[in-house]
């Protein structure tokens, strides 16, 4: 039987290893994609691991208001903000590396580079909103819960961010 996320958290609260493994398997990809848009690849995976460790130790604090997915993204977002403050200077160096070392083959490589650079140029809040709503398919409401921002702010962030990414792809519509 495949338990839903809330049931998994109940089982995790009771110490179920199996439920914890299922939770990781189910959400690691989304959490890591989100974090890779906010931090370097190595940092992102590190923060993703910490996110699941917090989920394990604080499963009892989940109250069921938001979806488990949003709750995990909320944990990841708080950790990503801490990381952003901590390694701001290092991140700037890595942005330079990305520019120099991005793959140059294939027709989509240029587009990928353009979108990545446009994404990196956005403020952190806007980037997080874009990643959750466009890359992870969360609704604006879910993203607002995860990022602890007003719904209107999320809509505005997504709209502006989307325009920037479209411009980077050469789409002026």
């Amino acid at each position, binding site marked *: 039987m495949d338990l839903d996320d809330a049931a998994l958290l109940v089982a995790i609260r009771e110490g179920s290893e199996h439920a914890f493994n299922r939770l990781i398997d189910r959400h690691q990809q989304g959490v890591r994609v989100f974090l890779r848009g906010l931090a370097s690849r190595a940092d992102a995976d590190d923060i993703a*691991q910490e996110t699941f460790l917090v989920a394990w130790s604080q499963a009892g604090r989940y109250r069921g208001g938001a979806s488990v997915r949003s709750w995990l993204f909320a944990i990841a977002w708080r950790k990503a903000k801490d990381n952003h403050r901590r390694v701001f200077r290092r991140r700037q160096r890595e942005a330079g590396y990305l520019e120099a070392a991005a793959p140059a083959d294939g027709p989509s490589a240029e587009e*990928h580079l353009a979108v990545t650079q446009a994404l990196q140029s956005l403020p952190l809040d806007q980037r997080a909103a874009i990643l959750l709503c466009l890359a992870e398919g969360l609704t604006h409401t879910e993203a607002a819960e995860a990022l602890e921002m007003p719904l209107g702010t999320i809509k505005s962030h997504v709209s502006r961010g989307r325009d920037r990414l479209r411009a980077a792809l050469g789409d002026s519509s």
Partner: protein
Amino acid sequence: MSTDIDARIATLLRHDAPARQDPMFRLRVLKRREQQRFQRKLLLLGLAALAVVAAVGIGYGARVALMEQLGVVLLCATLIGSCVWHAPVVAHFVGRARPPKKSDAAASAQHRDDD
């Protein structure tokens, strides 16, 4: 048109997404959890040992020298016991403290490239 470009953006944003199933990632999470548990237990055991030593020392203030010796013995026994209890994790920490061999470093670099 708008949906098309949104889908394209979504695809590009997920360009280097990790695999949907990634057992290595799960293992890393579990490993870190075990390390945290070990550190917490070690800290608790150490504190408990210190508390016992302090309590015994205060209770038998007149026999300070004897109690000090007993305290040291108790503390050492607790630490050794906890190390034996968590031998695999201790071995892991000791392994990490040593400078990596060339072959290990190369394997690690290869592993990072694979990621």
